[in-house]
């Protein structure tokens, strides 16, 4: 009698994912069966869950386990990114509660959705098969669509959800088509195998199906990381989505997109590096420039940060285009510090804005500097870090990204990058101009810093400043993560 062979599956690599999924489902149940009101407890539970997952992830540092027949891997690269996602999610959870309370949309589903997103992102980071990567991507995306439109009563939120969904699904189509072509060209969906097969091709770059597949996949991920010209959704969705979710979206999924794309290109398609480097070179320039230049004329602060987030994707792409150790380590470092600084900045935006997301213009920050000096100081730190001014983490990140490009010989790319960076200073400074240099028209009496938000801010500030002064604490890990991949 034939036995049905169930392959031995090592669940260890996806323990954090399992933990979070289970927790998410439990939370959903709690939410259903708990009386209305006390939603804050859900936030605390999910925060604890995230910490627990973080511990699990941390334990996995240094191990290299493949599982699910080689479609999932646990390595330092995945671990580093998973940590990044958890940081983003943790901070997002901390700043969500009071915001949702204020906006009156404190549905308990929020936290499970965040957790599912994280699960999806983690799968993207550790997936070594096109299928797992796709699944991770979709788990993340579907949850994000909901999160973007989470504030059902808010028209902007609706619109954000709608746009994100339509365009996201559209981009998925390209991604899948690309995967299909790769599959057709190589006959497999395992990244290692793809690499092996492509490596045997005499001139892989002349294989149109392969190149087209690569480009279409890149399109799909470029959408996620908001690279021009696939970035158009970003400002609208970031503006419309509930602010904590915007913060989360700008940090987590972007990192996840980079994680998947890095693994895809560096593991499966290193032989096509010349091709994808060229494309990324152009994309990087476009993305940085479009993001920064457009941001100059924005007034809505969320929109400014949305464009800024596009620009930051561009900086990361500079490192990616270089494709060397320095550049990719730079991406890892940058994504983590970006999570700290950007979510930190959004946290302050949440505090300063009023119900219904009014008060979201730059001018509404006028005089904050002397009414709430600590908040303003934190904001200043985040903004300087975003602008890439030392001694903040953002500077070190950019330093490594641009160094990668220079090491690779892309001097002009680096030059365009730094010029962009200089232009970007303008709109970051503009916010500071309002905070410090303009007289306040408001007393900011509605600004209340609850304990979770304060915690989030402290973590974010520490995460922005400390790696700026002693970058080794993170950089060393980023280096290892890239090396062992």
């Amino acid at each position: 009698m034939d036995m049905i062979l169930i392959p031995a599956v090592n669940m260890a690599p996806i323990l954090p994912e399992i933990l979070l999924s289970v927790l998410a489902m439990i939370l959903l149940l709690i939410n259903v069966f708990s009386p209305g009101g006390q939603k804050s407890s859900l936030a605390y539970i999910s925060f604890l869950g995230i910490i627990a997952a973080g511990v699990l992830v941390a334990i996995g540092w240094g191990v290299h386990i493949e599982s699910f027949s080689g479609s999932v891997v646990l390595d330092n690269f995945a671990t580093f990114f998973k940590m990044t996602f958890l940081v983003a999610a943790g901070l997002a959870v901390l700043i969500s509660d009071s915001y949702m309370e204020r906006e009156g949309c404190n549905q308990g589903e929020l936290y499970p959705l965040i957790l599912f997103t994280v699960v999806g992102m983690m799968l993207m980071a550790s997936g070594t098969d096109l299928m797992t990567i796709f699944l991770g991507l979709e788990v993340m995306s579907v949850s994000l669509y909901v999160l973007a439109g989470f504030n059902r009563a808010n028209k902007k939120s609706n619109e954000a959800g709608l746009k994100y969904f339509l365009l996201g699904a559209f981009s998925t189509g390209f991604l899948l088509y690309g995967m299909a072509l790769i599959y057709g060209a190589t006959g497999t969906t395992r990244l290692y195998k793809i690499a092996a097969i492509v490596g045997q091709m005499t001139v892989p770059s002349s294989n149109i199906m392969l190149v087209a597949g690569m480009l279409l996949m890149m399109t799909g991920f470029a959408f996620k990381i908001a690279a021009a010209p696939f970035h158009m959704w970003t400002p609208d969705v970031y503006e419309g989505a509930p602010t904590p979710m915007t913060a989360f979206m700008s940090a987590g999924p972007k990192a996840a997109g980079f994680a998947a794309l890095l693994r895809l290109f560096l593991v499966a398609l290193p032989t096509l590096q010349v091709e994808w480097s060229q494309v990324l070179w152009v994309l990087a320039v476009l993305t940085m420039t479009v993001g920064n230049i457009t941001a100059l004329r924005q007034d809505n602060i969320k929109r400014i940060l949305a464009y800024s987030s596009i620009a930051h994707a561009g900086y990361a792409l500079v490192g990616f285009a270089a494709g060397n150790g320095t550049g990719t380590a730079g991406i890892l470092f940058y994504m983590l510090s970006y999570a700290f600084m950007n979510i930190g900045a959004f946290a302050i935006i949440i505090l300063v804005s009023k119900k219904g997301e009014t008060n979201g213009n730059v001018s509404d920050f006028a005089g904050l500097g002397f009414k709430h000096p600590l908040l303003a100081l934190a904001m200043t730190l985040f903004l300087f870090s975003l602008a890439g001014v030392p001694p903040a983490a953002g500077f070190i990140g950019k330093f490594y990204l641009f160094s990668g490009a220079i090491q690779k010989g892309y001097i002009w790319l680096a030059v365009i990058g730094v010029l962009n960076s200089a232009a970007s200073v303008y709109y970051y400074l503009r916010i500071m101009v309002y905070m410090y240099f303009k007289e306040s028209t408001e007393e900011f009496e509605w600004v209340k810093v609850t304990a979770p938000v304060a915690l989030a801010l402290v973590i974010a500030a520490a995460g922005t400043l400390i790696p700026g002064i002693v970058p080794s604490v993170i950089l060393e890990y980023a280096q290892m993560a890239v090396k062992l991949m």
Partner: protein
Amino acid sequence: MSNVLSLTTFLPILGVLLLLFIPKDSKGVLRNVTFAVTIVTFLVSLLILTGFQTNAEFQFVENVPWIAAGPFIMRYNIGIDGISLWLVILTTFIMPIAVLSTYTAVEEKVKEYMVCLLLLETGMLGAFISLDLFLFYIFWEVMLIPMYFMIGIWGGKNKIYAAVKFFIYTMVGSLLMLVALIFLYFKGMQAGITDFGLLQFFDLKLDMATQIWLFLAFAFAFAIKVPMFPLHTWLPDAHTEAPTAGSVILAAVLLKMGTYGYVRFAIPLFPEAAHKFAPVIATLAVIGIIYAALVAMVQEDVKKLVAYSSVAHLGFVMLGVFAFNTEGITGGMLQMINHGISTGALFLIVGFIYERRHTRLITDFGGLSKQMPIFATVFMIVTFSSVGLPGTNGFVGEFLILLGAFESQLRWWTIVATSGVILSAVYMLWVFQRVMFGELDNPKNQKLLDLNAREITIMVPLIVMIFFMGLYPKPFIDKMDPAIKKLVAQVRVASVNTMAIPCADQSQMPAGHPGGEMPPGHPSVNMPAGHPVIESPSTQPAAPVANPHAEK
């Protein structure tokens, strides 16, 4: 006291921590504490001065690992030599004065102001002592932040424009420098250099094309900071809007970053390229001298006038530095210090009358000498120091610069630059006359009070330094001399390298080459054509040129 440098640099940061515990409203305490901190910093920095050995080596070196990740190794590598020594002392010397000047000038947000001042001090000191290129860059950028806030928060009417312009302008330059810095590192890595330590890069042999690009990137960043024509327009704006202490520090120390950058980094790192571009830079410097003087002459706002005069003065510094000989660079270094003292003093003076009258328009004044004799005296001394009257500090620097530049290939530039001496007298005396002389006819000016004790206290050290450096600059020159000699030697080796090639190829220098030209009426046989007229070093035997006229 091996870590006295670090102590000096980070004492102000400790001061900031101290300030955080002082309530916002006790302004007096805030001021006094800040003053005390800066004084202590100054005193500690005197330990550096006394412990400094007069030689060309870097001293008080601290070198500990800092960042090591990927291809990069950055170290906390600091130390000073005769060149940076005086700039460090200048910084610690100016700071208490700047703090003291704010006692009545700044009434709002005192705590923040003091924090900015102290942070600025750390930033500036850090930049002067860094021997690690990366560390230098960090401090270089960090300085911008407090200055930005000082202009933006406590500035005048157009403060936002000025502050943002200041920040972005400087940032553009320094970011390009960053690219060059990284590129240089990778070049160095190929040659076996292991970290960002500056000194190893001096031995790096780079090909000309690379040098040129890197030099241009560095030079651009520093030229903005200096500021050199035509990259100077941020300066008048920044100065006019900045509060007095800000202007003082900006003029006295921050601008020195640019010139210091040339001396410490751009020139010794890329000596051949520096030689190649010396005529260009000298041209810009000379244009700056004349141009800024002419523009200063017609200014209506005293502060703007002083700002433009800074451009002119720093043009002199640049000219001296690019003479590439001991006299020129010594003059340049002295002039940096002199400019710090004199122009700092000028900004203080402008601050004094601005505090009293809340205007800086020249036409609003006139005849103040009658009402404010002490002020008049002080103003006059500083004016003449700025004009470069012999006996004051300004002269020594300017003279050595011009002398050095005249000896070098920049002879014609020097002659034009020297005419700046006339123009500086024109605009400084003209403004002095319009402010201090004439009828005291504006009723608002008739009740002005003369300088009070605090203000006199502020000015006295500056005036003492004006005369001390003017009459006995020896200690200053002696301490910096070995370091400068070393620099000159570095550069000279390079110049021989660059010059050797064209000389071998073409026995004749093209006509019109500045190196080969003589003043009018001078027989051109004095020097063999093509001989680099940098100066015939004293170590060589006297130039074996027989002068046909001598025997006549």
